[in-house]
């Protein structure tokens, strides 16, 4: 599947396209198929996202898992600071990245 990601313009937070808007949680991302570039262009123009781009992901029962480690780190947070990730209480969260 293809999913769309970028950063929130004002905060810089990593965001994912949900079909209706942007979420901080990759599990809410939707398959954009071949519409990613068009959505990115429109959303960037509306200043709802900064530097959007389309990535490959795998559809899993827990939601989309980005194909590349860089985007998995973006999705969760730095592997060396579990306390700063989106799931600081989950001791196994890091294994999802690696």
């Amino acid at each position, binding site marked *: 599947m293809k999913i769309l990601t970028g950063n929130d*313009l*004002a905060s810089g937070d990593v965001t994912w396209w949900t079909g209706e808007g942007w979420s901080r949680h990759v599990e809410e991302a939707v398959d954009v198929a071949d519409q990613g570039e068009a959505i990115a262009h429109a959303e960037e123009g509306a200043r709802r996202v900064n530097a959007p781009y389309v990535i490959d992901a795998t559809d899993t029962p827990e939601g989309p898992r980005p194909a590349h480690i860089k985007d998995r780190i*973006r999705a969760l947070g*730095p592997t060396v600071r579990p306390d700063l990730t989106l799931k600081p209480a989950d001791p196994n969260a890091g294994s999802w990245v690696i």
Partner: protein
Amino acid sequence: MYKYDEYDHSIVASRVEEFRDQVNRRLAGQITEDQFKPLRLMNGLYLQLHAYMLRVAVPYGTLDSRQMRMLAHIARKYDRDYGHFTTRQNIQYNWIKLEDAPDILAELATVEMHAIQTSGNCIRNISSDQYAGAAADELTDPRPWAELLRQWSTFHPEFSYLPRKFKIAVIAADEDRAAMRLHDIGLQIVERDGRHGVAVYVGGGMGRTPMIAPLIKDFVPFEEFVSYMEACLRVYNRYGRRDNMYKARIKILVHEIGAEKYAAEVEAEHAHVKKLDLDPPRAEFDRIAAHFADPAFETGLSDEIDRSDPDFAVWLDQNVAAHKTPGYAIVNISLKPTGGIPGDASSAQIDLMADLAEKHSFDELRVTHAQNIVLPHVRKADLYAVWQQLRDAGLAEANLDLITDIIACPGLDYCSLANARSIPVAQKIANRFADLGRQRELGELKVKISGCINACGHHHAGHIGILGVDRKGTENYQLSLGGSGAEDVSLGQITGPGFSEDGIVDAVEKATDVYLAQREAGERFVDTYRRIGMAPFKEAIYG
């Protein structure tokens, strides 16, 4: 410490308000990201993996307690309670909001700090010896020279859009603690016939094409120093390649046309430039140098230190360096606790270091290119009290220049350019060699790790260097041996095929085993490597 004059205050304040307006226009949709990106980069604001990242300049690595406390305040108020000290003697914040950036810059300006020219194809922060003004082995304090260059290069209209970024280091001792010859221009202050001038090395650097800067002029007197730098940059600006960013650094130009040809071009340009009255009068240099005058060192102090606490004694031997003044010492604060993140410090730790500087080091601190902090002027009688407070704050790791004093770039955990993570590798090596006795048995051993070919982690200059690469979506690590960023400068050689994250730690350990088995008396790791060559190491690592 240099203090801003009215002009300095004015240009920094103007820049803050200019950037505030640019941010407002970006947030209001009046300018696009393509238009805004170069503007934010000129103010040190990057977009990284998780958020905006702000890089704040620490000119030649020197700052006072008021500035250090401001860095802690920014970490606490605008970031996630920590900062990352870098190999360029700067500090980076990883979780900055665009909407906060103008306020941060305004707060920095109140303590004479900024983020100007910490990005972009301009002359970056001038780096220097972290022991400047304190070292027992220096000819003179290099910081007035560095400050002169800072003033010359700030907003220089001709050098704001160079072919590529440009880094200058200034030292004044034969022991090179600033990786001087791995800079675009490296300057060593030397003396000839009773006059101070600079030996000029041009065309060094790391990145994908590492080069050691050749000497292009052995002595440029102070009276021609600035105009000669102007000529060096003009020749680069004229001939440096702009068609290919991978060949745009000055090292490529100097390498392609040769150091002699480059030097001849500079001489010809300098013959013209020196007539332009660019060189400041001696009185102006003296005005700047007065800011860096020695503090009021006490005389008649004892050099005796009570070494009865064994942990303190180890730290004393490892992390404390000789000072030029009897009764004083230079304290190195390691930001490399076992298993920690190299260069990271919490706001509480930054505040503590500021407090110690104010109370025990004439209000001065230094940031080192090895991502540590220095208290340059500590009375020997105060060392035990300083050590106790550092210990209580987790800042007394006695590992300076040992295998766990690892330089590591932020890597793929933070950096959008990285191909692999650096920090976890540093942590695993540090954990493997956690025993301090084992570290000290290995002696000086500089490990440097980069998460991509841009080499922010200085891997080319590591006695042991590690480069993270992306191999079909998987992190892989290349090992190199024999590099050095010091006065015995050399570039490391790759051992062979790369390793997994755990495999690279094993490979490092095997390399140290070879060293222990083969070393001769007095040899450091790099000395043994240079004597016996790569073969025994390759055999042990891959055999």
